[in-house]
């Protein structure tokens, strides 16, 4: 019962803030709504029992990536405010129509797969450690070590690339 209330409230907040992100005229308002959206998504993860992913969502997404967006918005906002949402333009109508088509198609797939259920999922795994963070850590360092190392290489390359790109020509 409490879980249902939590889910519906959080889902309403997530979708509401997402719509506000996409439709706000001022980019700084969009960024603020994005932060609130990510915090609601982290709360949703907590209700699902994924506390490590929730903490990483707040720490990396809301506390890192969106700060980066806010910095860039303020750096490019200085001279003149950019073009806002042009309601009723040809692009807007086509975009919304395509998005609606994707939503209808995905909903149809969801309903169809509900009616004809697939094969049962694999058995639950048993790991030597207990606790969400410990288990995720165990997986990251044993079964998924190679993707972990590749992700760290990716972050290093992205860091170097971003620094080189954003540096002033001296």
């Amino acid at each position, binding site marked *: 019962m409490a879980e249902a209330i939590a889910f519906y409230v959080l889902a309403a907040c997530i979708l509401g803030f997402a719509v506000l992100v996409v439709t706000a005229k001022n980019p700084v*308002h969009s960024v603020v709504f994005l932060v609130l959206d990510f915090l609601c998504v982290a709360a949703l993860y907590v209700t699902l029992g994924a506390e490590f992913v929730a903490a990483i969502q707040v720490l990396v997404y809301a506390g*890192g990536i969106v*700060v980066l967006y806010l910095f860039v918005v303020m750096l490019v906002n200085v001279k003149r405010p950019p073009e806002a949402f042009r309601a009723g333009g040809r692009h807007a109508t086509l975009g919304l129509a395509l998005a609606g088509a994707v939503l209808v198609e995905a909903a149809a797939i969801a309903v169809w797969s509900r009616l004809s259920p697939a094969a049962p999922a694999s058995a639950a795994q048993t790991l030597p450690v207990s606790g969400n963070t410990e288990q995720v850590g165990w997986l990251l360092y044993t079964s998924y070590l190679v993707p972990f190392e590749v992700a760290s290489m990716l972050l290093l390359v992205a860091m170097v690339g971003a620094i080189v790109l954003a540096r002033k020509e001296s």
Partner: protein
Amino acid sequence: MVELVLIPLLKIIVVLNATLLGVTYMVLLERKVIAWAQSRLGPMRVGPYGVLQPVADAMKLMLKEDITPARADKWVFTLAPILSMVPALVVYAVIPFGDEVHLFGRRISLYITDINVGLLYVVSVTSVGVYGIILAGYSSNSKWPLLASLRASAQLISYEIAITLTLVSVVLMSGTLSMVGIVTSQASQGVWYAFIQPMAFVIFFIGGLAETNRAPFDLPEAEQELTGGFHTEYSGMRFALFFLAEYANMIVVSSVATTLFLGGWLRPFPNVEFLSFLGIVPGWCWFLLKSFIFLYLFIWVRATLPRYRYDQLMRLGWKVLIPLAIANLILTAIVKVALA
């Protein structure tokens, strides 16, 4: 029902009130200590020895006119102090003030809650506190606050990395992310982590100074440099919120440092039986005493050291503290594996 809702609610009320009271009296403490360091007396007029000064300050700030700049972004202007204050207060949910007491026939633990990822929760919530500063500078619609807020937030996110790396070495030692678990592991290992992780301790303290915009890292809000920094355009109660948020952050950093490095509610030398008479003093008294030592250290450092220039500050954070923290982490990991 009582256990689930009423007791945590009571704990929240007690902790919040104590925090806000402590924050207001921190202002007085700072003024007094800096005055004594400068051979003067500080506030002495309001109440005996100036003890009622925070009341006068609070009344002044509440009765001041609430000015919003002409073309400021109203909603964001109002939101920024809230975004600065709320993370500082929300962190108190996981800080353990003591072990367990018996009140009215129940065992009440002296912390609001104990979650498995307590330390990660602390770090992630304080990283959301950056938004208050950036949005305050932006929404003031004025050059100086904008520049100051960008500098302040760049400083905050740089020192966040060094702090997080030191926390990882503490987690390596204790094997758990929960705050209560870290204190109990210090009890079971019989030593405060400050003695086996001295470099992490020092880096955490320096990073904590920078995270809370305290001297010597307080260039973003230095009155002489940037006409007040990111809260230039704020007056009255909103300014009070920023001010209180800074002191609340200071208390948070002190509490977290106490929990992680000074053994939380443990008495000094928890493994030495000879000193077990110190167990008369309850755990939460030790916690408050140790946090108070940190707060005094914050004020002492402010009264003593000159201010860092901005490029020196960034150089310290990126080129000195982060490599040291990584080196400490690698060393801790090597020693732990070698001893296992």
